[in-house]
């Protein structure tokens, strides 16, 4: 579709504006992270420190940071794999089983999304304790899978509902078992949905704070958001180091998402089924 030159100009300007609104806080985050601890904050705020240094990065990149990073990675990836798998199985059943009881259960999935985590965390904590899972990866993975599962089912159910029934029906007529249909037709077709859901689960899990705070107790098991919290003292915040570690936390994820984002969009365009 062709656009007038003036329209394109306006749209490009709007893009620039959008980029500024999004990036300005990040720019400032980087600026604060480069400010030496001895240089006081200026009034009015200075966009760039007088004597930028990477000192905060050096002190923030402690061995603990690497441990936290690894922990976040393990917990997030495990959660993504399990949630997306269980979510797709459940969503398939929800959309394809012509069983009244199963359709009725969809309401329970929606309802479960509404439970405030701050309220249900205590009973979950007690369960984890009885199962002797506190301060393990499993306590976090189980909790994260549970709290992300309702949304994952909901998202995947939406995608599966839009898939054309014709392909599955003809395969079934050709004698394919429901499992075959699921594996050969439904899984490949729902790839965009799977990626979108995985992205969502990863983002939520990567930054989860409340459960990680409550279920892990040693430095060996902590995840990044809880580790970042260490820079908040009793009466003040060490902004420089906090912002430096925030940048370090964001960079790799940014890289991953830059890649995933293109994959994600391409997946959707390729898998789009024209009705």
């Amino acid at each position, binding site marked *: *579709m062709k656009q007038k030159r003036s329209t*394109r100009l306006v749209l490009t300007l*709007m*893009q620039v504006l*959008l*980029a500024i609104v*999004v*990036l300005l*806080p990040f720019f*400032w985050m980087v600026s*604060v992270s480069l400010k030496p601890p001895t240089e006081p*904050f*200026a009034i*009015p*705020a200075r*966009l760039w420190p007088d004597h930028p240094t990477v000192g905060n990065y050096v002190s923030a990149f402690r061995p603990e940071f690497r441990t936290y990073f690894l922990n976040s990675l393990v917990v997030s990836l495990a959660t993504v794999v399990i949630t997306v798998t269980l979510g797709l*199985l*459940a969503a398939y059943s929800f959309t394809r*089983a012509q*069983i009244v009881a*199963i359709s009725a259960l969809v309401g*329970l*999935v929606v*309802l479960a999304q*509404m*439970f*405030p*985590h*701050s*309220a*249900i965390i*205590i*009973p*979950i904590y007690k*369960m984890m304790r009885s199962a002797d899972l506190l301060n393990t990866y499993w306590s976090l993975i189980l909790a994260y*899978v*549970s*709290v992300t599962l*309702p949304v994952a089912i*909901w998202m995947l159910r*939406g995608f599966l509902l839009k898939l054309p029934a014709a392909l599955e029906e003809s395969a079934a007529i050709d004698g394919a078992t429901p499992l075959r249909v699921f594996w050969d037709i439904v899984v490949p077709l729902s790839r965009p949905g799977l990626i979108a859901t995985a992205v*969502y689960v990863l*983002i939520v899990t990567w930054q989860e*704070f*409340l459960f990680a705070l409550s279920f892990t107790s040693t430095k060996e098991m902590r995840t990044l*958001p809880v580790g*970042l*919290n260490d820079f908040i003292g009793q009466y003040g915040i060490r*902004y420089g180091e*906090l912002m430096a570690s*925030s940048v370090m*936390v*964001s960079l790799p*994820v940014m890289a991953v*998402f830059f890649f995933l*984002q*293109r994959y994600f*969009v391409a997946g*959707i365009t390729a898998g789009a089924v*024209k009705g």
Partner: protein
Amino acid sequence: MRKDRRLHWLLLAPALILMAVMLYYPMFGTVYESFHETSFLSPDPKFAGLALYRRIVADRTFAEVVVNSIVWTFGVVLLQNILGFLTALLLNQNLPMQGVLRAIVLLPFILPGVVAAILWRFMYDPQLGLVNSLLLQTGLIENSVAWLADSRMAMASVIVAAVWKGFPFSMLIYLAALQNVDQSQIEAATLDGAGPTRRLLDVTLPAIRDVIVVNVVLTLILTFNYFDIIWVLTRGGPQSATHIFPTKIYETGFGQFRFGEAATYGVFSILVLAVLVALYAIVQGRANRRRGVA
């Protein structure tokens, strides 16, 4: 057919069992606790009937929490979806650099909530913050504004921070939906002489109606239960100006050790959220019917 039924139940089982154990059982535990008075001093639950419910409803802050929760949810959901949709439209235009921009726009959503909140608390700092500095230097305001400390401004300020953090998520879903819209219909509409606005209203919006519904419900639930941003920015203050259900639950439970009352707030919070979702469903249903009739 019977084998199919068994298969479907089998596929569903892991998810259902997990949700039953990890979500429903704790939620019933919370409901149970709401009828029992517990505190750190006497951790053994004592049956209290509806006493905690009466106590909370009689408390002045309860009404504030309900109103705040609604204002907060309404504000964030509305702004986040409008901004998310407009951004998705903008990023769906085949302009140069869109791939990069799409990734950039996602950044706020990737940033851990706690960090985003600390960043914004500093942005909003009346003296040292970037917001006041820029507004003062460009002459948009004459005196520093205490964004988070003034009870008239605080809620609007936390909403802006939350929208900045949340709109990329809505954008992502809208963008995916827009790319699914049938191009031939849009081209047909263009040939019929429809301008961009008409095409948007007559072709695009109806095509992504379901996505809008899902997006609104999803952001509504997530926003209503969102804890990190407000807790770090204001702790529900000044006074109770930004207290919403999750912050109140946390403060009562983990701040004051009153788990019975925290649980009661938890039950109320689900009721209020259910009402909000139901109201939206009714409004949406009515709109659909009207459209169907027309």
